[in-house]
């Protein structure tokens, strides 16, 4: 399979995930996506394409939207990561999660966590987006069920509710 001798060793890497400090033992080049899913057990973050095209693995890193499939975990050391599991508080859904439910913004569900995190990031920067802003804000997130209209309506609906 692979004739290269192993050159790297694992090390302890500490990051804050959904408000909790976590230390993992990992190779520096392991993808943040894999560490979140397999070591930390947060499987809400999905793998779609694995090459930054689909946005399914979107998470917030220090409040900024990123594709976790493109991040070596060592680069995430010391950062604050928010995944879909970190949005609801006290069993109350985040406004965007509730809006995705209410507007039928989820079909098969694979793109949904990434869509919601992209929308959280959008509304954090632009609380009252136009429909063009919503499309641009979610342009890196693909839905292969193609339920985009309901997704856009959910984001607009959440923005309206939050603005009231």
């Amino acid at each position, binding site marked *: 399979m*692979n004739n290269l001798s192993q*050159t*790297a060793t694992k090390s302890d890497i500490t990051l804050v995930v959904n408000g909790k400090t976590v230390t993992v033992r990992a190779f520096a080049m392991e993808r943040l996506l894999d560490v979140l899913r397999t070591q930390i057990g947060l499987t809400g973050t999905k793998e779609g394409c694995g090459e*930054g*095209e689909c946005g399914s693995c979107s998470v917030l890193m220090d409040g900024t*939207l990123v594709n976790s499939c493109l*991040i070596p975990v060592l680069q995430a050391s010391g950062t604050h990561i928010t995944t879909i599991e970190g949005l609801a508080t006290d069993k109350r859904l985040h406004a965007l999660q509730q809006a995705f439910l209410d507007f039928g913004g989820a079909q098969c569900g694979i793109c949904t966590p990434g869509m919601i995190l992209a929308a959280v990031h959008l509304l954090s920067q632009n609380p009252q987006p136009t429909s*063009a802003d919503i499309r*641009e804000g979610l*342009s890196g997130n693909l839905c292969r069920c193609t339920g985009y209209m309901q997704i856009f309506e959910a984001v607009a609906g959440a923005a309206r509710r939050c603005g009231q």
Partner: protein
Amino acid sequence: MRSHPADYELLTPNNLPSVLSLLAQEPGAWLPIAGGTDLMVQYAAGHLAARKLVSIWNLPELRRIEILPGEIRVGAACTYTDLIENDVVNLEFPLLTSAARWTGGVANQNRGTLGGNIVNASPAADSLPALLVYGAELILVSVRGERRVPYEHFHTGYRKTQCAADEVIQFICLPRQFSDYRAYTRKIGARNAQAISKVCLAALGRVAGGVIEDICMAVGSVAPVPFRLAETEKVLRGKRIDPALILLATKTVAREIQPIDDIRSSARYRRAVTANLVAEFLKGFSEGGSKKSSMLARWNSLPLAEAALEILPCCGSNSWARQMAALRPIEDEDTLLAASDKIWRSLTESDWMEAFAHHPRIGHSATPSTAPARSAQWSSEEQQKVAAAGDNVLAELAEGNRAYEERFSRIFIVCAAGNSAQTILDILRRRLRNDKQTELQESAEQQRQITSLRLKKWNSE
């Protein structure tokens, strides 16, 4: 086959000298990685040849934009988002901002870097034609010192560059000399976000009296590396723009580029489209003379505060006016109106209130003393039909206004243009039944329409 992380080393020094000494110790062994939007894709696919990576992500020496009197220096590890958010880049290098917005989606813009785009040297990179027309220079740095090279000569072949094994790009330098040039860029692709270009043209030109004084054009995805259209520029420089010249330019550019057939497009299509883009850019100058209006051209060249003051009568929010002025140059009316809508919707409630307060009561001629004279004149034009109404309707309207102001503590805003007093009275009575939040949104939408109409009037003066 997927890569195994155990086969790869990654170090994350916290300063540039440490990175440079590592590169110098084993030249060619260590590969710098910034946001990983290219390298992590190669890594995941098992195609990453380098086994030792050194992170330059977030190094302070590489992640800053220095504004100097004669040039700006963009740190190589600045992200597309850093570019999009920088006022000087937006104002003076709009081609770069457009390219940054087209690169990937938001998540990739947050991680992808300008220096990474350059060293990755893809023939289809959208930011590279912009760098070519702005005459960018690169500062390369190593333990041996630094050197400055024109970006135009940096790419030596398909995915090959002048960067030595122990060097990194520290800055991309852009001369601040293009503020009076007309900028044009267009990407042709399946879609703007997350799609690789079939053709991407960036162009700058300065025309006086119909004659091209200076012109710079560069194109991506139609040759092994993005390149300046030097031949086409040569046939255009110093010439008067007319249909014959535009035809000559399209023929020259079709000869000058070397597109290929690939999965995204055909050579024939790319040749035709590139010629069309050049023609569109050139036609913009002649149409611009009449359609683009001398108004926008003049407004674009005003100092910021003056430009904000001039546009304030269109919408009485100071924040709106300042943000509009900061977005210049705005080339045409469509862009002007779209920018206005976007800024208006992003304002705070108190900004909205400030704008509302600039209007006279409907059916009432006295304008608030805070409103500019221009605004007062427009108000009276907009309310022309209302003023023509009979005394009865006007009395009812006055009563409606009073009830409205009592209920919502501000004046009734409606886009009156062309509406009779009776129509407006009906609208007022309907809106009196709104709850406060709905009514605020409805008022804001009316103000948005008023602003659009006024911007059009202003632009056609």
